[in-house]
């Protein structure tokens, strides 16, 4: 199995390199870039040239690319054109904030989805199933940011129960209850955003398992429906889902862009959106590369998890 991991890693590297090239080209050949944001037509060519040199834009493209790659590989993502701050340190501050939002909400959604999905799947066609599945369909159709706005209106404006911006009230950075008050709304929206998809997945997996032959056989051997569900179906359903955990990896950076923006939660989201609006290319590139790398790693992780847990595949590798 180690061989398999090694093989996949080797496959992933060229993919990653190609992505870096594409990202770099996309940004570099864009019609409007950060230099344009800093200069105006009135400036002399000399000034423009000086500004370009300052940020390394005067070197040949290829060299720029190599320099950038070298930086990325050593963890240095360069500097924001707009704020002049180190992107790495900005990200280092912001990623934890995003993680605080994404990880607990995903886990909660995950657990809820297992319960709901198993229940729904095993009562297929009955009213409970229709209710749960119906709610999932509505959930999938609901834009999370809209839900956020509605919550903000009622909890924030109308009933003044919860704060609607940011992570802390100024001056209360060390207060945990204050943090919680800020935390709860984005958390709920995130859970609701993750839930329907996961539930549907569990549900269809459950239905699939319940129609397998071994279920009838188990019934013939006297297993109760609950036993079948808990001892056989649940485990068989959980297995492929655990592999979905691998896909959580990229979400640690980009899973909550819109929600964070709506709630002004100081994660990667608003940072990214602001960079986009300000044409801050180094920041955009950094986040692009980071998230792509995480997607590739996430896929790899999923594959490995699947290999490790399914006895049928373990042998083959």
């Amino acid at each position, binding site marked *: 199995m180690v061989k398999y991991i090694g093989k996949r890693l080797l496959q992933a590297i060229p993919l990653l390199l190609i992505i870096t090239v594409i990202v770099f080209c996309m940004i570099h050949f864009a019609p409007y870039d950060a230099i344009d944001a800093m200069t105006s037509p009135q400036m002399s060519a000399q000034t423009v040239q000086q500004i370009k040199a300052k940020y390394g834009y005067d070197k040949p493209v290829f060299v720029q690319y190599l320099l950038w790659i070298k930086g990325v590989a050593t963890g240095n993502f360069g500097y924001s054109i707009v704020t002049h701050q180190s992107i790495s340190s900005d990200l280092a501050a912001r990623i934890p904030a995003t993680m605080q939002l994404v990880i607990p909400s995903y886990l909660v959604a995950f657990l809820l989805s297992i319960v709901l999905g198993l229940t729904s799947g095993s009562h297929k066609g009955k009213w409970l199933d229709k209710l749960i599945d119906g709610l999932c369909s509505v959930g999938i159709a609901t834009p999370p940011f809209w839900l956020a706005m*509605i919550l903000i209106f009622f909890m924030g404006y109308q009933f003044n129960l919860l704060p609607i911006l940011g992570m802390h009230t100024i001056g209360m950075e060390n207060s945990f209850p204050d943090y919680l008050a800020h935390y709860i709304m984005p958390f709920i929206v995130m859970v609701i955003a993750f839930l329907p998809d996961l539930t549907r997945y569990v549900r269809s997996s459950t239905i699939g398992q319940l129609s397998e032959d071994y279920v009838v056989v188990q019934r013939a051997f006297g297993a109760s429906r609950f036993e079948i569900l808990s001892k056989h179906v649940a485990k068989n359903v959980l297995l492929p889902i655990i592999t979905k955990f691998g896909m959580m990896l990229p979400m640690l950076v980009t899973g909550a862009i*819109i929600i964070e923006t709506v709630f002004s939660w100081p994660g990667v989201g608003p940072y990214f959106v602001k960079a986009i609006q300000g044409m801050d290319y180094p920041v955009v590139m950094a986040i692009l590369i980071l998230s*792509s790398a995480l997607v590739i790693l996430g896929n790899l992780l999923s594959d490995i998890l699947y290999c490790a847990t399914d006895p049928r595949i373990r042998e083959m590798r």
Partner: protein
Amino acid sequence: MEKHRRIKNMFYALKHDKVAIFSVIFLVFIILLSIFAFLIPTDPNAIDPENMLSAPSAQHWFGTDEVGRDYLIRTIYGGRVSLLVGVLAMMTSTVIGVGVGTVAGYFGGLVDNILMRIVDVLSSIPWMILITVVSILLKPGLQTIILVIGLFTWMEIARLVRAETLSVKEREFVMYSNFIGTSSMHIVIRHVIPSVLPTIIISATTSIANAIMTESSLSFLGLGIQQPMSSWGSLLQDAQGNLQNALYMALLPGILIILTVFSFNKIGDILRVLIEPKVTAGDE
């Protein structure tokens, strides 16, 4: 006989599923409304500074926005844009997906390899990020958003079509066709496309639903539809600024998005009954 049973099953499912009936009716209604919006006498751009941000009333059923425009008519025109984006983006991604899929599946070898690597690469970049980035590289607006969504959502269809093409290619009648000299394009068109059509139709409905969601998100962030054009997403962006005073501005477009996306997905589900025989599980 088989097809007859499946059609019967679909209508049975449709008839007894009140939600599905509602979805169909709602979609027909909203599409007709969008097409014939110009017949409604209210002007979406008529500014009325005296009636800014007024709540729903007899005169303005959905109230007015921050510069006094009738919100109902703006929502209707917004819907028109959202639906347009949805359909056109779907068509773009379907055309690209089917094209790439058939070419990759049919020609195999190096061509297939390259195309599939491209699919892998594009699938590796979180699409939200990709779409956001590209949409600022191009001038923001209606065409951009359609193009961008279409360009980055074709991968799944391409994979499906490629798989189908590969399996059709293996079937004997294709080998015979080759033998008697029918051209390869002819074979592809005659055999692959019809067998892939059902899958494409189903994925088209979800495609539209997803495109509408994506467009709403992007427009909400200010990266999609630009003023003076409005879509449901951009209306929601305005609504965010006025949230405290005008909840109705957020409620309406949001509810319409939910209903539309839900309905398209529901139609997709019903079609799946027709097209994939295994879905009517439980009998025989």
